[in-house]
């Protein structure tokens, strides 16, 4: 075992660090990054500028083909770049979906001339993409989507509604899966397209989350016309294409979730119980120890994944544990931090709240973390079925035409 980079990795790390040092400010201090609302116009401009700069320097989408501006690098280099970027303040939040999920799907299914047209502008950040999968009736049952596409000559006409679409209002293009045949079983009647988000008939409405944030959107489709040439995969093969999208490796390091255990340690040093620093309280200590063990366990599990990547192996569904463990841990740490503050834990006014109100903020965002991108329950199913090899749940909709599947008690 060793924690050193290979010579190639070390060289790349130095190169990335040099680029970042020259172009961005290092992250200092412990004030957490709280992204309450969506991106405003100014933030969008900053994101676009930064992405273009990365692309110019050859640090955007490292694993992609050189002809689109990538380096055809091993995924471990992307991880290394992400680690380094994590130490700097750079504009984030506009391209994760497009570059992480949409374009990889395009690269698997779109025609060559389409790739020539779309990939490079996406990589350079000139065009933003979003992913239109979830629907109100779907939830954990993603394939139960109802948005319809009907053939009309060389086009398809889309009607329906998508939900939980990040960045829809800022996007130029989107990938979408829709139902083209409701008379066959659920997974068999779907077809996949990409489309212009400025097409007539598309309406985007932000969703007001419980935390106050508005990251997500509802997207309504009324007679939206999409040419058949923008179909990805065969008619009726949309589920298969969707799986490609969903399996796309997501190796982004992302912002560290705050509060982390160290924030709780800090808080308990400052607060007092019974006249002594709270950190001397055995109950506080036991919780800190348990959460620390969990955090470290996740960190080193990530190291094991990176080792596998480094050896050219493909990490699998076992990575579901990160969000599963983290989301509940966040919720528990947040709630416990407030308990230590007592009644003052209620207060979210910036100048009065402890620790920049990050505990209060996490109390309100963590419930969403436990649901979005696969609920706790779905993640446990994935681990049970795809890691441990247990049988699937018995399925009431199996083999039944989609339009005959029970959808409600009324």
């Amino acid at each position, binding site marked *: 075992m060793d924690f050193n980079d290979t010579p190639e990795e070390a060289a790349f790390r130095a190169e990335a660090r040099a680029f970042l040092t020259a172009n961005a400010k290092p992250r200092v201090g412990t004030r957490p990054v709280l992204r309450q609302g969506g991106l405003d116009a100014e933030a969008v401009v900053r994101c676009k500028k930064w992405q273009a700069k990365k692309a110019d320097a050859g640090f955007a989408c490292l694993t992609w083909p050189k002809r689109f501006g990538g380096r055809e690098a091993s995924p471990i280099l992307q991880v290394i770049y992400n680690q380094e970027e994590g130490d700097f303040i750079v504009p984030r939040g506009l391209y994760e979906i497009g570059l992480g999920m949409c374009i990889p799907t395009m690269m698997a299914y779109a025609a060559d001339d389409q790739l020539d047209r779309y990939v490079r502008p996406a990589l350079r950040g000139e065009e933003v993409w979003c992913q239109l999968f979830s629907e109100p009736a779907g939830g954990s049952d993603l394939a139960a989507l109802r948005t319809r596409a009907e053939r009309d000559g060389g086009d398809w006409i889309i009607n329906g509604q998508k939900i939980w679409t990040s960045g829809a209002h800022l996007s130029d293009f989107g990938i979408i899966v829709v139902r083209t045949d409701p008379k066959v079983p659920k997974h068999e009647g779907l077809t996949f397209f990409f489309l212009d988000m400025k097409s007539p008939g598309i309406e985007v409405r932000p*969703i007001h989350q419980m935390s106050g944030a508005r990251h997500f959107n509802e997207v309504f489709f009324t007679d939206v016309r999409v040419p058949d040439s923008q179909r990805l995969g065969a008619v009726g093969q949309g589920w298969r294409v969707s799986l490609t999208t969903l399996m796309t490796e997501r190796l982004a390091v992302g912002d560290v979730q705050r509060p982390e255990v160290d924030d709780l340690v800090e808080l308990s040093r400052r607060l007092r119980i019974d006249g002594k620093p709270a950190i001397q309280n055995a109950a506080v200590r036991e919780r800190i120890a348990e959460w620390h063990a969990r955090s470290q366990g996740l960190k080193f599990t990530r190291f094991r994944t990176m080792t596998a990547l480094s050896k050219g192996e493909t990490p699998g569904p076992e990575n579901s544990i990160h969000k599963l463990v983290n989301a509940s841990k966040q919720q528990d740490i947040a709630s416990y931090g407030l308990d230590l*503050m007592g009644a003052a834990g209620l207060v979210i006014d910036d100048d009065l709240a402890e620790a920049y109100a990050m505990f209060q903020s996490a109390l309100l965002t963590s*419930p969403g973390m436990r649901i979005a991108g696969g609920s706790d329950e779905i993640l446990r199913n994935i681990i049970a079925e795809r890691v441990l090899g247990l049988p699937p749940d018995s399925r009431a909709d199996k083999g039944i035409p989609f339009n005959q599947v029970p959808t409600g008690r009324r």
Partner: protein
Amino acid sequence: MNFDFSDELKQLRDQVRRFLSEQCSSAVVRRSADGQEVFAADLWREIGRMGWIGAAIPETFGGAGLGYEGLCVLAEEIGRALAPVPFGSTAYLTAEAILTAGSDAQRREWLPKLADGSVIGCFALSEGSGHPEPAAIHARVVGGFLKGSKWPVADGGIAGITVVVARDESGQPALFLADLAGVRRRELKTLDPTRNHARLDFDATSVERLGGGWGSVQRVLDRAAILFAFEQVGGADACLTMARDYALDRYAFGRPIGSFQAIKHKLADMYVALELARSNAYYGAWALGADATDLPLVAATARVSATEAFDLASKENIQTHGGIGFTWAVDCHLFYRRSKQLGLTIGSAPFWKHRLVDLLESRNAA
């Protein structure tokens, strides 16, 4: 053995529940949540008119004389309805403090106005972070004038009077009564926008002393813990009902999500926590009514149990709802916020657990 509320009180409960489901609908709660009004003033007037605020206040002081079991029944419904009114601050804390520690004159002056809702009371204890312990009290009364800051104070922005915990001239914590006219108040943003909170800055505010020292403060907190436990039980029950109904209505994979064991067992766990909390609260109701000697231990037990139940129910209600559960539009988050508000307002779970064991030890030593 008759460990249940009387038929009269059960009728009262039904009546209150019907009333609040109409007069304190989600739309009313959301007027406070969305900042359109500071609290539901119309509802408050109605509640005062019905005599509910003064349920446990003796008739001689303008109360309804329903007794504490009656007040418990009301508290559960207030909690279930997420009522955005200063009920607890006025009835469980301010009125109780005056009843417990006030002189006859003070009772006669204030209790009738609190009972009919014409004066809102608040209880100014916290001075920022920390547990409600004597050591945390720095506010001080010298020569009848109070100096110090109290925050957060539930309903501090809308109250007419406050009972303040401050040190007297000998340095001992004690209860004081102050008119809030002229006191500098700052409304605070908190996790629960359906409840008003403020910071009160006392700068040589004239106060009058109520009787009693820290023992009286603790007595008020103990009794309030039982009443808030009923609010928590009501809230947890509402969450379980919401989650159950949603699990029956919502279909995934061709069947109601309530047919999946992950959801069934989650709801079963919520039910179990709720039943334990309810039973502990019931014993608290009896102890309040009987002014039982083991009331402090019973109160700590009820509070620990109810805080756990509402915490679990409110967070797993969101989880059961999935995506829609973490939108602003659905009420799940309002219960989740209220759960934390109630769980912190008179001291958080660690404080009450610690106190519970103190009391257990002294009982076993006895």
